[in-house]
């Protein structure tokens, strides 16, 4: 379980996280939604220990992310940020192999290699495994990064806007793969996502943020109502039930 207690963060005089307390239960997919500047990515980055908090604490299975040794944390929780630009020229297989670093310190064992191949297969990257990252399309590259964090074999996987820059087809296939990672690999996946309908259709829980606070949390059925969505986004949203999912219409 991920537990946040009185988490605060400010950039200068601007408060981005205002006393957030929250529990994220293990298992399934949890989506964090909210308008720009609500503090979603900041919260995820602090949980993923890439950023320090000004106050409060985050624990993952009881371990404080701020003072647990990096290597122990890296075998329990992985995070992928939106922007990943590497200066080194890597093939997909080399990149995914880096996911094994917390386990093997870079000396890949046979088990590691098997895990790398499994992660490549899981994200349909086998035909691209020996291509360089800069030769791939945005969607393929995004899949390679996700394969790296899955290969890290952590119980918790945090993804910051995994659908960024993906077209409809690739966005759907990415969400299906995330769903499958939760269902068949038993990972707890937490994503920051902009599209409320993707959140509604693919997640088990939704956390809605606004102005640095968690304003609503619950199942998609509880969050996907006109009242809640208007409260979160300050926008009139019609919600219809289509093919078993609650879809918001706001265009």
């Amino acid at each position: 379980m991920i537990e946040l207690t009185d988490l605060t963060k400010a950039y200068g005089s601007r408060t981005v996280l205002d006393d957030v307390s929250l529990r994220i239960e293990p298992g399934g997919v949890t989506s964090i939604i909210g308008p720009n500047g609500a503090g979603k990515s900041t919260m995820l980055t602090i949980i993923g220990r890439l950023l320090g908090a000004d106050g409060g604490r985050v624990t993952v299975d009881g371990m404080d992310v701020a003072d647990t040794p990096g290597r122990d944390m890296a075998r329990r929780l992985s995070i992928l940020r939106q922007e990943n630009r590497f200066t080194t020229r890597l093939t997909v297989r080399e990149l995914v192999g880096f996911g094994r670093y917390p386990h093997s310190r870079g000396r890949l064992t046979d088990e590691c290699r098997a895990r790398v191949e499994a992660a490549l297969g899981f994200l349909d990257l086998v035909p691209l495994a020996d291509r360089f990252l800069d030769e791939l399309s945005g969607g393929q590259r995004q899949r390679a990064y996700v394969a790296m964090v899955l290969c890290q074999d952590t119980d918790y996987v945090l993804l910051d806007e995994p659908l960024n820059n993906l077209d409809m087809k690739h966005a759907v296939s990415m969400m299906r793969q995330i769903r499958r990672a939760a269902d068949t690999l038993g990972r707890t996946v937490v994503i920051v996502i902009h599209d409320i309908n993707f959140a509604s259709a693919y997640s088990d829980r939704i956390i809605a943020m606004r102005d640095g606070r968690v304003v609503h949390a619950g199942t998609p059925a509880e969050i996907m109502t006109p009242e809640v969505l208007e409260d979160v986004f300050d926008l009139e949203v019609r919600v219809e039930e289509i093919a078993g999912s609650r879809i918001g219409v706001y265009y």
Partner: protein
Amino acid sequence: MLVGVLVWRRHRLLDVLSLGRDTAVNLGVDHTRAAVRILMAVSLLTAVSTALVGPMTFFGFMAATLAYQVTGRHEHRYVLPTAFLVGLCALVGGQFVLEHLLGHAGTLSVVVEFTGGALFLYFLLRKAAR
């Protein structure tokens, strides 16, 4: 020599650090500690080599760039020894050419600075053109 070997033994850590801070932290590297240690090792290496052969601004850049070009790879296990060899060849070879073929016609550091500087400009302009 000893410091060089110590750095080379950490080549896997260097590979991870080259992915950037966020990815390195995600993979369990204590980034601040690693960065401080490597900077300390680098200062020591720079100090010793400067004391031994004198200051050469572009020499390190030249050796590193050529090492990347020669190996065509990013892994520090290949790049570090190659850079070492490139540096050694350039210095010893250059000194040899100057002393025995050109009859002490100049100082090596001037030649190295010129070629290294030219290489630096070339890469700078190529990057700007992209």
